């Protein structure tokens, strides 16, 4: 069991596997997203209060779920790399970050698009949207820190410390923002007061969530392959790969 585990812990052996997995998950992602969007835009019933505009929820909610989940995964890999000094874990964490940031941005953008027809404003200082905004800054911070450090080992370790500190802070940030939101009731409207869930709505969102998850895996693996090639460019296996004899 342990032999299998460590076999793929070196970039050289993981590289081809990552390629195959990325392709597989990419196809699955297309399928799942296709089904999810169909369910969301055609099958799920029109909402009594919000009309058709609510359908953006099928992208907004899964994107928000993914943004949080990916940060946890990123912190997990980064922490693993810090604790066990493995090269690949750090590369995975760096590979996940841009996808996580993308989903955070998507959640914010779709949240804004939802807000306009429903509540009349492009932005609402709702607890979840505000937390998503801060999460976006956390992702940017991670990516900016890694971009600023030339030495890849230091970049991985520093990113790991930041990601772990971020993970510890996320619950604190979320609860303080939620509290802030309830204190200043006044103009606040909550996007979390979603329409009551019909079964098809929940299925649609779940399928989309899986679709996004598969996409994230595929994208992260592809990015990880690029990072591996870049970092190990001095080694033999990369030279072989470049020559085409993989």
């Amino acid at each position, binding site marked *: 069991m342990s032999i299998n585990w460590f076999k793929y812990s070196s970039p050289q052996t993981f590289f081809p596997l990552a390629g195959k997995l990325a392709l597989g998950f990419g196809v699955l992602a297309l399928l799942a997203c296709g089904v999810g969007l169909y369910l969301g835009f055609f099958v799920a019933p029109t909402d009594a209060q919000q009309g058709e505009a609510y359908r953006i929820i099928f992208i907004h909610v899964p994107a928000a779920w993914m943004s949080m989940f990916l940060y946890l995964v990123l912190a997990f890999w980064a922490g693993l790399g810090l604790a066990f000094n493995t090269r690949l874990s750090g590369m995975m964490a760096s590979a996940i970050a841009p996808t996580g940031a993308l989903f955070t941005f998507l959640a914010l953008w779709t949240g804004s698009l939802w807000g306009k027809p429903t509540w009349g404003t492009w932005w609402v200082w709702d607890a979840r949207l505000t937390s998503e905004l801060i999460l976006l800054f956390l992702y940017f911070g991670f990516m900016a820190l890694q971009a600023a450090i*030339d030495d890849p080992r230091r970049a991985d370790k520093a990113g790991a410390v930041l990601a772990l500190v971020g993970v510890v802070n996320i619950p604190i940030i979320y609860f303080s923002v939620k509290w802030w939101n309830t204190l200043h009731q006044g103009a606040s409207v909550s996007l979390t007061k979603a329409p009551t869930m019909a079964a098809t709505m929940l299925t649609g969102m779940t399928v989309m969530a899986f679709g996004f998850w598969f996409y994230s895996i595929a994208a992260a693996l592809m990015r990880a392959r690029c990072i591996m090639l870049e970092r190990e460019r*001095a080694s033999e296996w990369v030279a072989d790969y470049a020559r085409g004899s993989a």
Partner: protein
Amino acid sequence: MGKKAGTPSLEALDLHCVRGERKLFGALNFTLRGGGLLRIAGANGSGKTSLLRIACGLLEPTRGEVRWGGENIQRLQEEFWRQLVYIGHANAIKDDLTAAENLHVACTLAGVPRRPARIGEALRRLGLAGSENLPARVLSQGQRRRTALARLALSEGIPLWILDEPFAALDAAAVEDVRGLIAEHLSRGAAVILTTHLEAKITTAAALRIDLEAA
């Protein structure tokens, strides 16, 4: 005559060091015991400073480990550092503090606080009599280097000295002073690691030499 230093024993096992893109050295082994002087030679950029920093525990080797008294130094942490003096390229001197104040802070942080009289003595030994109470800002390069090295005169109880280019930027008299300090320390049964372009000319029973090739 100072205190007898504790019995030192530093082992490097299969050290590899890769910095950025370059592999600096690999499969490096050495054992250093009391009374032993290890001189690390090599062209600029060959990894001398990196090796010293690995021996101190500031830098983690890409592979391999360093042991003090049989135990990995990363596990020993402060226990090891209490038995080490490291004087690197940087003087570790604050410009806004006087030479005496700088030494006082250095010794206290190392766990061996010294009385002002001892500090004055150490500074005099390195030819800095009269400059003890001047802010380091107004001292010359050579004087600052001597202030940093004056710490050696206060570390007779520390079994391991690791020195990066201790003779650089010093005039002949100061070089002799430092040589004397190192020779005395070795005769106390302590261990010294240093890098230098000058020939050490320090006679000691056990002299090791490691040559690092520029990659």
